[in-house]
């Protein structure tokens, strides 16, 4: 092996001008922009739920959508922060999804209490999970591809957050597309699979984001 001075000289010779990576907020905003375009295009093709305007006047539905948007924003920014080896010295931002998920949980508990008498369960069940998973594949690939360009030292955590970010876009799409008022169904088939997806992202991060 060469000695340190030789290595430094070689690295210095190989180095040229390099464009520094953008700030994580900018990066997160860029990823959110792409995901939003994807969401709009998908809604354009699949169509909005017919009763959406009416549902937007229901406080619990609106709160759920807002909480999902918060999850999407927090996970996108957190994934961008986790792409940097030192978390861009904004460690707290990496934990921001926890607050968003707590908010979503509170909203779901509130919606469940307010769901009296309970809305009838839809006839389908796991189809929702499959739809969300399939729909989130493209944003997952995109986010992992974008994160690989950086140097994450928290690749498992980063992978998990990136997967959750993609999943939240899909969950948002399904809530705006599917006619369904059952909170129990939404929790069971829309949000609980998020845990499995997050764990899958953890494993994917270990495989894909390691450098």
């Amino acid at each position, binding site marked *: 092996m060469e000695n340190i001075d030789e*290595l430094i000289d070689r690295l210095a010779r190989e*180095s040229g001008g390099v464009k520094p990576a953008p700030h994580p907020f900018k990066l997160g905003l860029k990823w959110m922009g792409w995901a939003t375009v994807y969401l709009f295009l998908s809604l354009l093709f699949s169509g909005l739920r017919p009763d959406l305007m009416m549902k937007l006047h229901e406080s619990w539905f609106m709160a759920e959508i807002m909480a999902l948007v918060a999850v999407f924003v927090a996970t996108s920014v957190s994934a961008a922060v986790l792409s940097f080896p*030192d978390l861009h*010295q904004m460690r707290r931002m990496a934990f921001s999804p926890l607050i968003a998920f707590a908010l979503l949980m509170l909203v779901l508990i509130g919606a469940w209490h307010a769901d009296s008498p309970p809305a009838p369960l839809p006839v389908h069940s796991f189809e929702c999970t499959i739809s969300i998973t399939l729909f989130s594949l493209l944003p997952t690939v995109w986010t992992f591809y974008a994160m690989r360009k950086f140097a994450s*030292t928290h690749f498992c955590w980063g992978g998990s957050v990136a997967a959750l970010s993609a999943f939240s876009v899909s969950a948002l799409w399904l809530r705006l597309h599917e006619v369904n008022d059952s909170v129990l169904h939404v929790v069971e088939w829309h949000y609980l699979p998020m845990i499995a997806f997050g764990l899958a992202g953890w494993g994917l991060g270990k495989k894909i984001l390691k450098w």
Partner: protein
Amino acid sequence: MNRLKPVMINPAWPSIRVNRKKSYKIIFECIVADNPDNFEALMKLALNGDQRAYADLLRGTSRFLRPFLAKRLSFTNEVEDLLQEILISLHKARHTFDGNRSYRPWVYAIAKFRLQDYLRAHYSDQLHHAIELSEVEESLSGNVTETGMSYESISGEIQKLPGKQAAILQLMHQEGYTAKEVAEKLGMNESAVKVAAHRAYKVLRSQLEK
């Protein structure tokens, strides 16, 4: 913490016709000359393609990383090997540092990451090569003070090795030369000597085990 010092530009100075990028570069060079440990300014220059600043930066970095690694590893060669790996990682990830935040936390994040990686690989390797006690139970009762191998038998096996390998082992183990000295004597480079010696040990081990 190394922060950029504000630079006062005298309004009485004659206006110099330089573009903005060039004037920033001049200001940074002044700051660096004033304080060679201003890693953030050095990194900014390096990101703009200044190779000298980049070499200074890496040299300064290895100066403060060496004691950090020495505290955590037991052998000097381990420290040097890992330091090289860390410098290569810093080089690969240099685009993730923009020079607008503290340099040391960024470096330590990468150094700790590589150190953990190294220790994980090291310990898993040790576990991999560990032998179950039950596997060697039978041989434990044997006489451990006597061995079937003698100096002559090892020496004889060395003679049977291919010319260069035999010469290397003789020089290193019978005459006490270091790998570097053997390399000079045989007109090889040091790492080639080490590789040849390693291969010779393998052959020798399998011969003696028979």
